[in-house]
């Protein structure tokens, strides 16, 4: 028996529930104007599943498991790069304050 050791499922559940609470409160504070960037950045963040895929792809053997992993890496990487980049593109549009000021005083 493990004595005081807690089953990892309980630890994971603790982390999960707390993270849901953090997510809930942080996301309610997101301004509605940025809900589309919110979705694209969450696309990018959920691609952190890449971490699991890399472990599978890099098992050191060439077998079904590592090939599945490599495919998952490629899919997730599309989101990693695409998600952050497209978010950046959108947020850049929300930034443009100077041209507006100039145009107003023209």
């Amino acid at each position, binding site marked *: 028996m493990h004595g005081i050791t807690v089953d990892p*499922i309980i630890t994971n559940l603790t982390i999960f529930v707390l993270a849901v609470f953090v997510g809930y409160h942080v996301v309610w504070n997101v301004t509605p104007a940025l809900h589309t960037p919110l979705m694209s950045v969450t696309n990018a*963040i959920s691609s952190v599943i890449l971490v699991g895929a890399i472990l599978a792809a890099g*098992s050191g053997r060439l077998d079904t498991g590592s090939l599945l992993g490599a495919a998952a890496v*490629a899919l997730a990487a599309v989101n990693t790069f695409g998600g952050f980049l497209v978010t950046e593109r959108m947020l850049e549009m929300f930034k443009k304050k100077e041209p507006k000021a100039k145009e107003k005083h023209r």
Partner: protein
Amino acid sequence: MTQVMSSNQVALLYLVASVLFILALKGLSHPLSARKGNRFGIIGMAIAVVVTLAITHNIGMALGAIAVGGLLGWFVARRVEMTQMPELVAAMHSLVGLAAVLIAGAVVYNPSAFSIPDPIPAGNRVELFIGTFVGAMTFSGSIIAFGKLAGLGKSFRLFSSAPVVFKGQRLVNLLMAIAMVGLGLAFVLAAPDAQMPPFAAMTAIAFVLGVLIIIPIGGADMPVVISMLNSYSGWAASGIGFSLNNPLLIVAGALVGSSGAILSYIMCKAMNRSFFSVILGGFGAAEGAATGTAEQRAVRSGSPEDVAFLLGNAESVIIVPGYGLAVARAQHAVKEMALKLTEKGVTVRYAIHPVAGRMPGHMNVLLAEAEVPYDQVLEMDEINSDFGTSDIAFVLGANDVVNPLAEEKGSPIYGMPILEAHKARTVVVNKRSMASGYAGIDNPLFYMDKTMMVFGDAKKVVEDIVKAID
């Protein structure tokens, strides 16, 4: 094992990445802090990936796959039009879903690569089952959502923006869901060498079920669907995090999952639909009945010059942009018009309904792209009380979100919060024709005495107005 880092170091760096992800979302509370937030997200992801590569035996294949996927993502992100964001986001949800399924498959095939005992303990198998079926449904459901959003209905019936329904659909869905759970249990209870068949069958059913739950949902409900799939993709990532005992995946997945859930809630509220009625689908199926009677009624129509005259003499104008505006690519012309009016001393503001675009916040991005200053762009709650004191409400390519029928009992959209454009002193509506909106319901706003209709392509009309404003 030739580890360059201890597991404690790895876990701490994963914690740093988790915190950076939270900061990435926190940054989005204001347009000015948002880019910094995005940088935090990128740094967090870079830490997570580099740390994982450092503890991996053979990084060649992973690096190659990152290069392939990364290049594709980079290319798409650079090229995509802002009007296509909903499709892009749907496509990205599907990728997360499929990646989750593939990883789960890899775990079942070779648990030791993830330091999971072989045979896989029952607890981990439950987690794998959940992560897999959520991932599989996210994948196939998002493909359907993508098809509907991209307007591929003509080439493939399942992509039709009208609800695809058949007799006994809900019963079929229910039976398949039961079969899926049954096979999931079989997978959890199976002998170590007999896990693959129930796992594969369960996954296959989840793929089909994902298709079945999205096809009956009509085009008007797509903002809810896309938010819901956003949520699912997060839960799928979390599920994989549970099975791999990886806190970073659990945290990131939970953040994304709750974000999508909140957006679904906001979208449902904006359409006055309960989440379940959206999921069960079929909305907008009886379009013909609602539109039939309207055709003969008279409307007052005017020319762009008439509108220019009205606008030029107004003190305050509220522009209500809808998706039609984006389709016509008229955002830049509208900004020109607003600029000219502002120079003449007219107060111009924009009123955005939460479902003005095809996804949450879509219209804000489209206006931002046209360099409309974000402080002129107001949300429904902020601006609705100002319509009554405004001279002109200029509705451009919007329809359902300004439909006063929403205030009448018995109408199919009764109770939906609308932008109260009908309260302005004068209403100007630009439409291509008298066709009904996405929800397929006629709009009495067009027949009001104070309403002037300007027919034609939004871009052309607005450009003519710009020319006519002196």
